[in-house]
């Protein structure tokens, strides 16, 4: 395997070469990604337009299916508000549930020690 520089006896020119080449490669990778990702919606929309046209209908530009992020945000917000309101529809009648217990002499006041005669 060949190395770009001699790691034992390096010179400053080697260091600047690594820096320059390295930084350029980082830019190259990300610029390539930019172009590919910019191309991606164009290709996908072209395929979609083609299929619509083949079906007999005509599509005017890309706006037909475009929904702005703000519109999505507004829809999402209204849904959240709607669902958050749901649980507030209550009867507002507070009731106490009466629980019937079978009689037991063990806890009866009649047999309590403080139940003195008057």
């Amino acid at each position, binding site marked *: 395997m060949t190395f770009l520089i001699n790691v034992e006896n390096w010179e400053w020119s080697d260091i600047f070469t690594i820096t320059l080449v390295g930084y350029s490669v980082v830019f190259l990778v990300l610029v390539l*990604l930019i172009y590919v990702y910019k191309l991606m919606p164009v290709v996908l929309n072209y395929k979609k337009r083609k299929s619509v046209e083949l079906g007999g209908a005509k599509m005017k530009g890309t706006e037909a299916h475009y929904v702005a992020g703000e519109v999505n945000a507004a829809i999402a917000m209204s849904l959240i508000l709607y669902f958050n309101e749901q649980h507030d529809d209550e009867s507002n009648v507070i009731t106490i549930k009466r629980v019937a217990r079978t009689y037991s002499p063990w806890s009866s006041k009649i047999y309590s020690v403080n139940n003195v005669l008057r």
Partner: protein
Amino acid sequence: MGLLYVLSSFFGQAELYAQTAGESSGSLGRALDIFWNYTAFSSVNYKYLLMICVGLFFIYLAIRYNYEPLLLVPIGTGIIIGNIPIMEGFQIGIYEDGSVLNYLYFGVLKGIYPPLIFLGIGAMTDFSSLISNPRLMLLGAAAQIGVFGTFIGAMALGFEIHEAGAISIIGGADGPTAIFASSKLAPHLIGSIAIAAYSYMALVPVIQPPIMNLLVSKKERLIKMKPPRAVSKLEKILFPLIGLILTLFISPSALPLLGMLFFGNLLKESGVTNRLAETARTSLIDIITIVLGLTVGASTQAVRLLEDPVTGEMVNKGFLTSGSIKIFVLGAVSFAVATAGGLLFAKIMNLFLKEGNKVNPLIGAAGVSAVPDSARVVQHEGLKADPSNHLLMHAMAPNVSGVIGSAVAAGIMMSFLM
């Protein structure tokens, strides 16, 4: 501690006394003496105490100011654990073969944990803002000047070339990438590099705003950007696949990091592997964060005397050396340079963009890959200038591209130096 020293002295005297009194009493004194030598008090010095204070400070920052608590609490606790002076030979310390901590540290040394962290990051990150406005990726690339600037700086400060390569990744402001690169290039510096990287990541809200104030004018801060377009599901699925193939063909050394990042994102966006994505972004990343933070912290043993292979003398290869201080200084400078690089590049971009398409230069600061902290700082600073200007979604694009950029930069550095 002083009290224990007095007690020890007392027991020492008692031993002398016991020798005259009888052998049974002497054995008690000797036992107490041996016990004293086992305790950490017998070999403690100011360096250990200083590091324990650093660990406590990290925990304080996390709890009091909420600075990256998920990282600083495990690291801070790890620093305390790693700096309890122990008697070697009992398989306790992190550098002792066969100890529990040593087994856990294996994942750091061999670069196992960082790719798993990237898997979790991929599974929790929404790349929509980046897909909708790909040109903002340039800001993530521009901020990588911190990496290459630090490389030159480290060489100028006298570090060996592999060490300089490992240190340079601190400039990417990406903890897992810095650990991964140093595990390959300079394993003996993992502790210092990881602590420096995570410390500055935690201090993003302190470091970045002054640089933003210095480089971005009031008028520029008020720039409102177009809202990002809606991104289709198909685009979201194609994003990790294209990114995976394209980036790894150019920089194969970054395969463990970027491969896992895009794989995690595919799990999230495919829509058919929700269970796997859920595990990757919750339980898995949490477990790895705990183990990584704790062991990285524990690796910062203040004093570690090792025999120099050339001279045969015992040399301190622990954390508290002049090298660590230089790494911390370089880390601070590289962070500032990376932030400035992103901000200035955004200003340069604006020179070529039409009115209405201009970017708010503040989002350039998010080019460093401290996700999502730097994006949050941008949002906060943007709101200070104009309470109706929300920059968070725009800042997330350079922020996540910074993650990709720093992983590519680390891959390039490794391919040059390994």
